[in-house]
């Protein structure tokens, strides 16, 4: 066993209301690829941001090359030899490949004039060491995403990084590009670089990594050698069974069909999606981030355009609607991103609640404030929302209370179909179970409900029927006893391998 190059000891990091990391310890050895896996919210991204200096831990220490260090920021991390490669690349599209590799650390003479030849030579060496097929002169904006990623990886070479952290590096790569990336990771590995690999994609994890550390709820569940474990064991560790998650499922009393989708397709996002949902039914849509789930429902709701597909609303064929029409028909979408898509943060709860239904809350275009106040008060008490008043900007509320206002703004117009996209992401446990109960209530009141989630226990716990999506395809449908985590994992990973094989 070689000595670890980087050790994390008992790191704890608390955010308001959440313990993101709870005494986390793990280590990275030179020349190994170490996977960090866990569900959304397990603490992976907090941990890597702590290593890269974007967060400072509350307690615990980071030992690097035998010394306890403080990482002041990304620049400090880079200078120390710890490099984070984000999903969102930190590149300047207008600058050349060479300039991006050495971003902010360009070789210059005393007067600040670039030593272009030196810059080019060094960059070329870094690119060649990685076996990149492009030169140092191209503008980064003209490169593909995969090539851009390569530019970031070249920084590892250029700054002789000892630790490189990859965050979901294959999220937007094609398979050939992925192979190229893995090839590069292996060559980094051969040169003794310690690599942290964060991904949702299990097949990749088993393909490339040497050890796997599983995080759940901010705690390390264990570190295993990849060769001595299997998908099943890892998944079990990831999901676990937390005692405080208790799901209520609505009674199975379905009414008429509310929505049917046939052959919905959009180039590059999803293909030939068909399903239907009935009154009183909770339909789960499971898939990993990037599987195309949000895009499908946003298209149905009318904020995106489709290439092809037919919608049936209450068994009548309709044109693909614009958002305004779908809202008026009785469709509601609780979007994935609360802050960007769900709420106008500087408005209060009252105004956010009425925003999608201005016509219902007005006569001759004049807002009926009494009606607004009544609805606001109704949902404030029904959903027990904690706010100081109708006009307190929702930006000041906790994530859970914000999400309840998003729900209120849709529920107040009595929709027939409500689509919830990751309804419990980033909110506290108490609000989570309140939302789960609400989903059951709504279905029992006769609404059709679609719940999207990448958390398996959630999607299985609240739904009557689950569709699994992967890479833009609906790959399987499960009901009753078939609704198990194993089946979902199998369906998705089988499909992933199939796609990979093609």
């Amino acid at each position, binding site marked *: 066993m070689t000595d670890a190059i980087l050790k994390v000891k008992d790191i704890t990091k608390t955010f308001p209301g959440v313990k993101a990391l709870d005494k986390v310890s793990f280590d990275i050895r030179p020349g190994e690829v170490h996977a960090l896996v866990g569900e959304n919210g397990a603490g992976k991204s907090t941990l890597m941001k702590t290593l890269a200096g974007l967060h400072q831990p509350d307690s615990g220490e980071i030992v690097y090359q035998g010394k306890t260090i403080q990482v002041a920021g990304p620049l400090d991390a880079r200078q120390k030899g710890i490099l984070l490669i984000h999903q969102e690349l930190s590149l300047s599209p207008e600058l050349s490949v060479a300039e991006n590799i050495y971003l902010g650390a360009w070789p210059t003479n005393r007067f600040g004039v670039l030593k272009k030849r030196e810059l080019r030579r060094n960059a070329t060496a870094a690119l060649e060491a990685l076996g990149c097929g492009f030169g140092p002169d191209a503008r980064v904006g003209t490169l593909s995403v995969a090539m851009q990623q390569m530019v970031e990886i070249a920084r590892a070479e250029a700054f002789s990084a000892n630790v490189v952290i990859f965050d979901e590096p294959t999220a937007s790569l094609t398979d050939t590009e992925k192979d190229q990336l893995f090839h590069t990771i292996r060559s980094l590995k051969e040169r003794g670089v310690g690599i942290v690999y964060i991904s949702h994609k299990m097949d990749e994890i088993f393909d490339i990594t040497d050890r796997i550390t599983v995080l759940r709820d901010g705690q390390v569940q264990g570190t295993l050698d990849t060769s001595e474990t299997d998908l099943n064991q890892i998944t079990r560790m990831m999901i676990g069974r937390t005692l405080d998650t208790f799901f209520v499922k609505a009674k199975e009393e379905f009414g008429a069909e509310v929505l049917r989708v046939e052959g919905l397709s959009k180039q590059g996002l999803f293909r030939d999606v068909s399903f239907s949902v009935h009154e009183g039914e909770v339909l789960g849509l499971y898939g990993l981030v990037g599987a195309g789930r949000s895009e499908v429902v946003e298209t149905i*709701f009318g*904020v995106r355009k489709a290439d092809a597909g037919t919608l049936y609303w209450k068994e009548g064929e309709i044109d693909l609607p*614009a*958002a*305004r029409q*779908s*809202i*008026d028909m009785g469709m509601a*979408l609780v*979007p994935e991103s609360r802050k*960007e*898509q*769900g*709420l*106008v*943060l*500087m*408005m209060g709860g009252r*105004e956010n609640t*009425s*925003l*999608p239904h*201005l*016509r219902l809350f*007005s006569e001759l*275009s*004049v*807002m009926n*404030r009494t009606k607004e106040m009544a609805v606001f008060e109704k949902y404030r008490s029904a959903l027990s929302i904690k706010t100081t008043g109708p006009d307190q900007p929702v930006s000041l509320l906790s994530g859970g209370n914000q999400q309840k206002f998003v729900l209120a*703004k849709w529920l107040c117009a009595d929709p027939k179909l409500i689509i919830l996209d990751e309804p419990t992401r980033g909110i506290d446990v108490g609000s989570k179970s309140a939302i789960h109960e609400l989903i059951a209530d709504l279905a029992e009141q006769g609404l059709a409900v679609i719940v999207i989630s990448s958390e398996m226990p959630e999607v299985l716990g609240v739904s009557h029927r689950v569709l699994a999506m992967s890479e833009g395809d609906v790959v399987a449908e499960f009901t009753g006893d078939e609704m198990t985590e194993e089946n979902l994992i199998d369906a998705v990973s089988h499909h992933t391998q199939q796609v990979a094989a093609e």
Partner: protein
Amino acid sequence: MDISLSGLLRRHGLIVAFLVFLAGVALNADAFLTAGNILDVLRQVSITGMMALGVTFVVLTGRLDLSVGSLLTLLTVIVVDQHNSAGPFAAIVMTLGAGLAIGAFNGILVGFIGLNALIVTLAMLSFLQGLVLFYSGGSNVNIANAQDTWFAVFGRGDFLGIPVPVILFLLGALVAGLVLQFTTLGRRIYGVGGNETASIFSGIDARWTVFWTYVISGFTTGVAAIIMGSRVMGAQNTIGQGYELTVLAGVILGGTSLLGGSGSVWRTVLGISMLGFIQNGLLLLGFAYYVQWLVTWAVIIIAVWIDLGAKRGRIFA
């Protein structure tokens, strides 16, 4: 509630500073806080104020309208010229119509085609200046029968001792305020300015919303042009030059954010009036008129900085 002095300053620092300024001037110039002087100031700000009402709508959506200065010139030339040839009533209708049409054109370019608002309205500024020269042939126009036209009432008239332009401005502000606070259009404007994506996800058509704000801006500039034409009883080819910046300064000074979503009509009225009172007060104190520009500079920087600092919780970025 925080009722300490520092809390008061943080929330209403601008108003407090303004009151201190008013008191200071009043102590040194007896004529300052008289009804006559106050009405004079309001009369002076009624034109920029009227324009600022419409521009506030545009800025609330996070867009800009730099074309209002040139538009004011054009519409003033139109109203004066048409007054001579078609009579006052037709002139007013044509002026408002032209204002609405040009506002709509801006609205199409920015709202529907999605071009950058600053550049579009800057281009419009240039274009309209050309249109002015084309229309007027480069010469100034004057109202022929200045002594006996009822058109004079808009710029020069009094009603119950209050100048008509002031009444128009305050009436306009009232209507604009009511529209923003109490109508669905107002709500859509705040929604689009505050978070365009979330508004679209709420079924709001941001394109139409933006479009209407430009139409409103064109309309209020039309009203301002009527006041201007009536007051001056004529129009030069440069009569509105630079007004777009004064108007914008007043809107910003009031605390309406250029990023959109926050601000209000009463704040614009406050901002524009402050500019007027600063100008008037400094003149009464015996300063040359251009000293007000220096004070305006300082006031804009300090006011916006304090506002931003209070929102951020820190003074420095």
